[in-house]
């Protein structure tokens, strides 16, 4: 290039000096100065950024930057701030009786939001994201409660759980009428028919149901009640309603009687703080079936 300035004849613009195929030249069209300055400013900015913020990987880690900024630390401090902001509410919930929380609009709304979040993290694995339950895992939206549906009862169930070895857990089991030889298979079939007839389930063998009535009074009524309405103290489900935790078919009910049923739930007080348990109880109670 040095000393060589070729001017293109047609446009009157200087060329870069390179020639291809004997006659092909490239016009030298310079960039505007402001563009160049912006480019330099960006370079300076980049160097400044490398100094101040974490930028380059090294063999054992990365350059930290003068500010010592870290997104992780930022998140931690944000979380801490958010926790601190929640503290007044959490304190108020901790100090109030669970039934009083419901009466205070702002506390109640806070508890519902906190309960929903805790439910998603801890409960939805078994009960489902919408608390809709599954076979063996109760639907928490409905108004049928095995261990009671008042706020206090729900809080207790969540705090200590069911059949998990915790000393305050709900623990009463249902006998294995078939496996333990308490009842003959034919009798079990009759009782199953009778149980299904109580709640008006369709396709019931009425003759068998009639035969099973006496056995029910003898073997089952102690826990489930004469009228089969269940007993929340014993965790004996109401057999006269339309909700069947393990299914309402003849097979399902027969299996329940043969093997007994003993669903379990962890004692959440050993994993969560009392305020979270309280908020969970309020949330579950608000799903539509709370008593």
């Amino acid at each position: 290039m040095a000393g060589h300035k070729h001017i293109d004849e047609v446009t009157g613009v200087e060329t870069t000096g390179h020639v291809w195929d004997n006659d092909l030249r490239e016009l030298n069209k310079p960039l505007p100065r402001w563009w160049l300055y912006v480019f330099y400013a960006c370079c300076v900015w980049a160097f400044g950024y490398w100094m101040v913020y974490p930028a380059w990987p090294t063999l054992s880690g990365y350059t930290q930057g003068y500010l010592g900024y870290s997104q992780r630390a930022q998140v931690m401090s944000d979380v801490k701030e958010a926790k601190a902001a929640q503290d007044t509410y959490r304190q108020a919930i901790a100090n109030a009786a669970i039934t009083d929380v419901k009466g205070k609009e702002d506390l109640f709304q806070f508890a519902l939001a906190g309960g929903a979040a805790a439910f998603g993290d801890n409960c939805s694995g078994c009960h489902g994201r919408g608390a809709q339950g599954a076979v063996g895992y109760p639907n928490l939206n409905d108004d049928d409660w095995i261990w009671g549906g008042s706020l206090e009862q729900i809080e207790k169930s969540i705090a200590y759980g069911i059949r998990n070895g915790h000393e305050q857990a709900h623990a009463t089991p249902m006998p294995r009428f078939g496996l333990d030889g308490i009842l003959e298979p034919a009798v079990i079939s009759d009782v199953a028919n009778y149980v299904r007839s109580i709640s008006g389930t369709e396709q019931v063998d009425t003759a068998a149901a009639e035969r099973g009535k006496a056995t029910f009074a003898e073997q089952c009524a102690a826990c489930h009640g004469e009228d089969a309405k269940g007993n929340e103290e014993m965790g004996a489900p109401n057999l006269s309603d339309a909700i069947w935790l393990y299914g309402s078919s003849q097979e399902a009910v027969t299996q329940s009687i043969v093997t007994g049923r003993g669903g379990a739930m962890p004692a959440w007080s050993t994993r969560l703080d009392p305020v979270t348990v309280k908020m969970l109880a309020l949330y579950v109670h608000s799903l539509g079936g709370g008593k």
Partner: protein
Amino acid sequence: MNSMDPSTKFTPDDFLVEAAPGVVRHDVNPVRQPKAKKTAAADASAGSWAAKPNIYPKLAHGTFRNAKWIVMLVTLGIYYVLPWIRFDRGGGLPDQFFLIDFANQRLLLGPLEIWAQEFYYVTGLLIISALGLFLVTSVAGRVWCGYACPQTVWTDLMIAVERFWQGDRNAHMRLDQSPWTFEKIWKKTATHVTWLLIGLLTGGALVFYFRDAPTLAQELLTGTAPTVAYVFVGIFTLSTYVLGGIAREQVCIYMCPWPRIQGAMLDHDSLWIAYRDVRGEPRAPHKKGQTWDGRGDCVDCKACVVVCPMGIDIRNGPQLECIQCGLCIDACNDIMDKVGRPRGLIAYTTERNLATATTGPRDGLRLIRPRTILYTVAIAIAGALMLWAMLSRSSIDVSVLPDRNPLFVKLSDGGIRNGYTVKLVNKHQVPRRFKIELTGIDGLTTTIVGHDDAGAPIEVGPSNVKALKVFAAVPRDKAKTLASDSTPLTLTVTEVDGNASSSRDTSFRSPGP
């Protein structure tokens, strides 16, 4: 590199040259010319960059200059004053006439309150503005660029400031070529400080649109304003300084897409500032007593070139760089008066008139053309739609979201229950009470979480949203008679103390027949 720039080549002797008696012939070449006229020297600045051409626009006097001063006064007046206008809304709401309230996701404009979810009103306004710009451009060319564009207005202001401190064209050029004397230093410093102050006021005014102006002004001055306010004041101070003070016409030429787009709106009948070469050519200096026969009216004084803020020569024909500010018309009319020729050698005219001027009399202005009709109709349609939307706007907003998980819940008595999240938006600036009613299915019972009596009125605070969980249950025998797994249901919200009402269609899900 500036010594290479033709526009700065200057000796006092040049002013002795006359284009006509009493008319100075300016020694100036336009810094921007159409490709064909470019000289090798103009583009051969070489190196890896091109120097920014210096333009020293001379102050023009006349109709268009006055129009530009007035537009500047009005537009800047609106910009700086609007956030300070008060409007009493009551109900603890901000009393700023125009406030973009980000914190509460709403836009307040006088009695109007536009919520974030209603932002399509603003979209509609922008569409109408764009169509308006199309119409104006198709009728009168780049009037937006020449008079009203913020870039033009602020650049004009910055040039006025520069003239105030450093003098008009000749004095300014002399100062630039002089060595760095004390006078030059303080004049340059004063110019840049004033530019920065204008930038600061611009950035300062901008943030007032987003927060109560008097409060924020106090906070800004006492150093207690939110950081983001200072950041935006800083950004707009710098951008005003750089774009208006330094970059100026380069923004229009290199950065702005609008000059390229508007070619699509122009046609033979659009008004356009043009040099009537039929009348002006052949151009030549005119001596006292010479005849005007056989020559053009243009005395080649280049008054039109020295006043041009874009650094072009209008006599080169239509150019992308021309923002059509009309200053060359002012400059040329002035000269025509001096030499005793009719005004309008440079004037607003149309391409059709320029073409027919060679063969016959000029046509009048043709305002009604398919293009202008199309734009007007489009504006009318968009405006009517907006007006209809505004007039039929409800003072409450209701949204209903049926639970998806679970779709329905079977109750112990065999009944079926659905859950809905209902949101009530009270757009009035007083608290209001509403009743919620679900209709469409026999025997339906409604409950609202947290409200013991579903029929009791529910209060929603001023300009507030209330979310409610609503349950609807159908008993077993009724559920069995439902014809499908999804039955239409209507939720109606009625104001207890007023007559506002709104209903939403939703559905009731069940296992089906």
